[in-house]
Each structure stands twice: as C-alpha cells, then as structure tokens.
C-alpha cells in the first residue's frame, strides 16, 4: 500500500507523435512509491508507448518526466537505469544465443584485463538468485529455457541494475495460469521486502483486480482516469477502456441439424518445427452450421493442428477428411479448392502480402475463377478493382484506397482485409485461429458477427482461440487441447469457465469430473 503523497514518478503532459499516429495525447500520470499500479487499455491505446518513454526508449514530442522529483533531461535507457527504473518488455530483450548470465550482465560485463570474466558473471547471477529468491541457472542458454524462466531473467536483469521502479509490459501474455500466479507472488514479495514500485501494463482485467492497488485507463492515446482498484470492477474498467457500455451479448442460435460432419480429424499426429510431437493422436468432428471451439494456451499444438488441416504442415499419421474427401497430405491449393478458408494466427506474415495492394490481397487464391480471368489466364483487372471496392465498402476497410500497399494500413484494417477475403470466398469449412488477437473490441464484435453469419449459412467452423470469453460467446461445442490432445469436450451453455480453464492446463482431474 502506498505510504507517501509525493509521487516517485511524475509524467506531465506527455505527448508522443509518430508519423501518422498520435500515440500519447497530453498524458499526465503520477505513480506513488511502493504501489502496484496497473495501466490498462486496448491494443494501441498508448500504454506501452508511455512506459517506453519513461524507460527512455522513446523521446516524447512534448512534456516532461520527473523521477523522485528530478527532471529527466535525456531520454535514454542509461538515464532511466541511473534513476532506478527497470523495464521488462512484452517481447523480451534477451539475446537467444547468450546464456542467462551473459544476458543479465550485458553492457556491464565483469572483466579480467581486456577479457570477459565468465566465471565472475556466473557468480554475480548466483548472488542475485540468493538475494531475490528468483531461481535461474546462469549457464543455461536463454533460447532453451521456458518463457516463464526467460521472464525471470528479464526481471533479474532489471534488479541487477538497481531498479526499484519496475515496469512490466504485458507480463502474463505468454504465461500459463500457474506461472502467472508465481509471477504475482514474486511481485508482491519484492514490493513488500524491497519497497519497490511496480507498474504493470495489461489488458487482462481480472489480473488488474487481483494484483493492483491503483489502476489507470488509457484509450486512444489519452489517460481516461485513475482509480483505486478497490473502488472499481471489471465491467467499469471495460467500459472505460472502450468508451461505451460493452456488452458481449450472447448470440441467439439455432442448433444445427446436419448429420454428416464436414470436417473429420482422426488420430492425427503432427510434428512441430523442431521435430518434436506437437499433435498426438488427436480426433475431432465439425458439423455444417456449427462452431467447434478449441480452447488452449499457446503452444499446445493448436497452431500445428490448424496448419495440418489446411495443408501447410506435413501429417505424420492419421487422417483428415473434408466434405467426405480424404485430404491428408494435400497441399493448400487443393484444400482451398474444396471450399476451405483459413484465417491464420499470424496475420501479417502468413495471411497477407504487405507489399501488394488491397486488390491483390483480396483476389489472391481466386484469380483463376471465371469472374476474374479469361480462361484462367488473362486477368480481368477492371473486375478485380470493382470487387475490391465492393469488399472494402462491406468490411469498412480504410486507409487510402484499394491501391494502397497493405503494409501501410493500420493493424485493424489489415485484419479486415484478411477477414474480407476469407469470409467472402463462399467456403463451406473455415479454420479460424485466434481471430481477435490484437484487435480492438469494436472490430472483434464485427468479426464475431461475421463468424455467426457464416455459421447460419451452413459453414462448419473450427475456431481456435486462447480467449475463453470469445469461445464462450461463439462456440456450440467446446474442446480443450493440452499437449497435443483433446482433454475434454464441453457444452459452453452449462459448463463453468473455471472448469474449462483447468482442463486447458491439464489439471482436469482436479475438477472432479471425468
């Protein structure tokens, strides 16, 4: 709990203008010593930018920052470190091929003459482990350790440089629920024992309620308000984040009457990029007009499952049947030809071609259709343009006209191009991975409606997501995936989220059910 009134960090009238984007708009924020402060907002609200300014990674266009009453004159990580600020970024700032020790002492390496004193570096890390109780092994290569451990290395890195103000940017995005609990314990203990101040950036409101003392809400670059956590709840925070009363209304649905499944996966085994089993003997069925949700934490085989079903990954054993045809081993072109569309997890790299314009991105895969080409050879450019205009209007794609290269669009509009393409191809089976990742609430609602519409058209939809709320809203049936296998099947209308959450982490037995 905060004791003093004079803030340890004071950010005044911070404005940050990037080319084309006003990331922070006259933000003023005070942080008190010894508190755990949560900074929330949607993607693109400006929270990371603000904290990156505090850590000196960006120089603000306007405004000033005071740390313990002293004004920061230069924006530079060295300055921040000097003032006792440390930051654990969302994407870790670790060199994968270096060891834990080498990463922690980076730029402050102990030396013997001209040479690097590796032994002393390892020693230093041992000492840190003793002091803070965060167990890591100095000689481990960072690339080979778990994400949770990597985060600990990041935290130790900051503590080693004498940080007593610690910024954590979306720390739980990559953690399992158990690792999240451990992290929160660590945070509480370092705040208590070392009187540290912790600022945690997150968009997960349940975590905000669990850990923070005060919470600040940002929206579209502005700071909307700061509250004591005990005075608010998730619903209030959500509406502050979005600016309107957001009710994720459940959809009214008619149960499908189809008897023949459109997608059948039988005993599928698939390897990941390292040659290790990612999907083990997995089986599932999806019927036309239904949405089968797959709930799982990233890294449990869902990506590989989606890739195998769409022909982008080699199948080791098992069978995949789409609309009664055996598609195991077919390539993406053949599978698409059967009427399958795919919204991939990695939108930008896999799902779009950044350098191409919107027209090309919308038409690709279908250019040989009679409406777009004569005899599958000569392109009907005019028709392609018309089609692009139509879709842009229907899906509200903005950013400069259909000839704009896709990479110049905002993240949300890029998503829309992808969604427009995949949802307009008249497909009968859809594989959708993490549809609302990195998408703001308004766009998410739009995408959900599109998915429901495809469902009512009779499309069979396999929906893979890590967001239980989304899955609950959309799925007819829900399966959990853990370590490459289906661990449970549920009816979202009667099962508690908590129980599904347990199955997602492989602890289904604790739920006390079969």
């Amino acid at each position, binding site marked *: 709990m905060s004791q003093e009134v004079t803030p340890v960090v004071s950010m005044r009238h911070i404005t940050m203008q990037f080319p084309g984007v006003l990331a922070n708009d006259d933000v003023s924020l005070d942080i008190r010593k010894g508190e755990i402060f949560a900074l929330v907002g949607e993607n693109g609200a400006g929270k990371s930018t603000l904290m990156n300014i505090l850590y000196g990674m960006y120089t603000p266009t306007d405004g000033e920052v005071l740390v313990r009453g002293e004004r920061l004159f230069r924006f530079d990580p060295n300055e921040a470190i000097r003032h006792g600020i440390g930051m654990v970024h969302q994407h870790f700032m670790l060199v994968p091929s270096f060891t834990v020790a080498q990463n922690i002492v980076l730029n402050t390496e102990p030396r013997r003459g001209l040479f690097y004193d590796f032994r002393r570096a390892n020693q230093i890390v041992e000492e840190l482990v003793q002091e803070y109780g965060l167990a890591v092994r100095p000689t481990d290569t960072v690339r080979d350790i778990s994400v949770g451990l990597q985060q600990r290395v990041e935290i130790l890195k900051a503590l080693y440089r004498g940080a007593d103000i610690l910024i954590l940017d979306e720390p739980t995005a990559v953690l399992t629920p158990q690792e999240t609990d451990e992290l929160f314990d660590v945070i509480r203990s370092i705040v208590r024992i070392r009187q540290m101040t912790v600022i945690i950036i997150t968009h997960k409101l349940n975590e905000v309620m669990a850990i923070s003392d005060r919470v600040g809400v940002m929206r579209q670059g502005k700071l909307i308000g700061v509250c004591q956590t005990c005075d608010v709840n998730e619903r209030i925070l959500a509406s502050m984040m979005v600016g309107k009363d957001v009710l994720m209304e459940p959809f009214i649905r008619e149960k499908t009457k189809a008897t023949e499944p459109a997608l059948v996966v039988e005993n599928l085994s698939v390897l990941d990029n390292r040659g290790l089993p990612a999907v083990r003997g997995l089986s599932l069925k999806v019927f036309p007009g239904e949405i089968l949700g797959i709930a799982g934490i990233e890294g449990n085989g869902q990506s590989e499952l989606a890739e195998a079903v769409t022909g982008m990954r080699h199948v080791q054993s098992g069978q995949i049947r789409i609309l009664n045809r055996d598609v195991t081993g077919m390539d993406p072109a053949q599978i698409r030809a059967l009427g399958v569309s795919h919204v*991939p997890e990695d939108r930008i790299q896999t799902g779009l071609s950044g350098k191409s314009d919107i027209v090309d991105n919308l038409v690709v895969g279908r250019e040989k259709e009679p409406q777009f*080409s004569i005899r599958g050879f000569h392109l009907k450019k005019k028709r392609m343009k018309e089609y692009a205009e139509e879709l842009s209007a229907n899906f509200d794609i903005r950013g400069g006209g259909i000839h704009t290269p896709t990479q110049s669009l905002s993240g949300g509009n890029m998503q829309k191009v992808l969604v427009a393409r995949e949802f307009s191809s008249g497909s009968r089976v859809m594989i959708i991975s993490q549809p609302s990742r990195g998408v703001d609430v308004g766009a998410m609602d739009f995408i959900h409606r599109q998915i429901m519409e495809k469902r009512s058209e009779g499309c069979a939809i396999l929906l893979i997501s890590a967001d239980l709320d989304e899955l609950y809203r959309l799925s007819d049936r829900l399966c959990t995936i853990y370590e490459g296998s289906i661990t449970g099947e549920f009816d979202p209308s009667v099962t508690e989220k908590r129980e599904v959450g347990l199955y997602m982490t492989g602890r289904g037995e604790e739920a006390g059910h079969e």
Partner: protein
Amino acid sequence: MSDARKKYLLSLFSSILMALVIGAVIMAVSGHNPLEGYAVLITGAFGSERSIGNTLYKTAQLCITGIATAVASQGGIFNVGGEGQMYLGAIASCWLGAALNGTSPWLAIPLCLLAAILAGALYAWIPAILKIKLNISEVITTILMNSIAIYFCTYLANGPLKTTEKGIVSGTASLDRAFRFSRLIKGSNLTQTVFMIAVVTLLVWYLMSRTTTGFGMKLTGENSRFARYAGLNAGMLGILGMLISGAMCGMLGMFECFGLQTRFKTDFSNEFYFDGMLVAMIMQYRPLGIILMSFFFGALKIGAVSMQSQTGISSELILIIQSVIIFFMAAQEGLLASLGRHSSARRANRMRGGVKS
C-alpha cells in the same frame, strides 16, 4: 496516380539529376569539361543515322536483359547470372548453327533459337532449384556460375569446338551466311533481331502484368509463405521466373552471335546483362518502366562511346552514374520504409538462407 507512385517518380528523377551532377563533378576532377562531355554524349547517341541505329539496338538489348532480371525477380529469385546464361545460349546456338551449315535457314534458325533458349533456361534452372529446395542464396550461385560459364565457353571455343578454318585463332566455326541476321541501318548494330526482341519483351511483359501466372509470381516473390497459404505453387512459380529469364538471356546470346558476329567469340559480350540488370534495379523491376528507361540509358551508353573517343572520358562513367542513381534511390526508399514501418518484424536476410537460427 497513387501516392506511392508519385513518390517513386520523384525519387527517380531527383536521383537521376543528382547522379548526372556527380558525373559532371567526376569529369571535372579528371580534368575534362563536363558540358563538353555531356554534349558529346548527346551527339554521340543521336548525331547520325548510324548512331541512332546503335542507340535503338542498345535499347533493345537493355530491354531484354532488364525484363529478364525483372521476371526472375517477380518470382522472388534475383538473377545475377544472366551473363553466363547468355554465353551458354550463344555457344549452344553457334555450335548447332555451324553443324547445320548448308541447310535451309527456315529450319536452322528456329532450331538454333531453341538451342539457345534451352541452354539459357537450363543454366538458370540450376541456381533456381538450389534456392527453392535448399535455400542456397541465388546471388552467390548465379555470380559464381557466370565465371564458370565464361571460362567454360572460352575453353570450348579454344579447344573442342574450335573451328578448323584458317586464320581463326579462337571461336567456333563460321555460320552460314544465310543464317545471319542482316542490319537494318548500314554500319550500325541494329539488326533484324530487334523485332524479335521487341516481341519477346512485350510477351513477357504481358505475362508479368496481365496474366494469372504473372499475378501468382508477383505474390510468390513478395511473400512465399503467404503465396503457399493462399494456394499458389510458390516453388514452381519462382522457378518459372528464372527459366524465362535464362531463356531470354540465352536468346540474346544467339541474337548477338548470329547478328553482329559471324561465330561464337569469347568476347562477344561486354557485360550486356549487367547493364540491363542495373536498369532493372533502378526501375525497381517494373516492366513498363524498364522498357521506357532502356531508351534513356541506351542513349547514354552509346553516347558514352563517342564521349570516350572524342574527349577521352572513359565510358565507365555511365556505369558509375547508374550505380549512383541506385544508391540515391535505395537511400530514399529505405528512409521511407523505415518511417512507415509497422510491426517490428525483422527483415528476412536474403543472404542467410536458413543458416543462422
């Protein structure tokens, strides 16, 4: 005209201007009068019927090699090996041509052309397949293969395939007079081949920009993972680009030998492919741009020959100017790209080929 295109044209013209200024500086520093130099450049390119013929032919040469670079690039593979492909096309067609001496040209010429195309395409196929299957950098393989091809053809021309004609020190046997392409303008390099070059260039342009194949190649070249995901056969399209590129270069080899030489000679090319490749790089592989600017650069190159003989300024100056243009444009493009960059996704290093993890 879209914003991006306007920026590009601005960048192009300002870079050309800057490069010409730098060219003038270089001329001055080496003790020559820049104005005089540039004046001779212009008269050298257009001053006489003969020089116009040369300029037109050079334009054609740049078109075919430039488009050859562009079509390979569109498929995602950068062909720096056109010179080698040209050599192989030349020697294959000359050897066949000499063997067919005495037969009807209507039979011989198409066959020799076919030989040239196949030789060039095959030689381009090797680095292409190495890139697609093993992810080996095509830049290195194609450049090394240039050297291999040139040495190898030299060896053949001086050894096993050397003509037995009297007085010929090196080269294959003379080609039948009936097979040779005649000149359109007396004394110039402009031969009948220019029509064929025009046809080929336009056909390939059509393929690149107006067909589903070209469309597929473009998307493959930009993001091959995306192309596969979208249902395109990325590997085949990439290889196709290289095959066409190699075929075009092989063709040029044949045209040179059958038009301007009388046999395969080891020095028949003076880095013709690299000239065209530079034009393609400057025009960022856009076919229409390449065709248009080939004329500008063709004039420069021909004019430079006169410039060299009349003022002593080496014609290499044009290459210097061309590379300076590329530097300016690359800098401007890089600056623009870094300002508009969205995700922090690191640019894939084309050279690596999956070596580093």
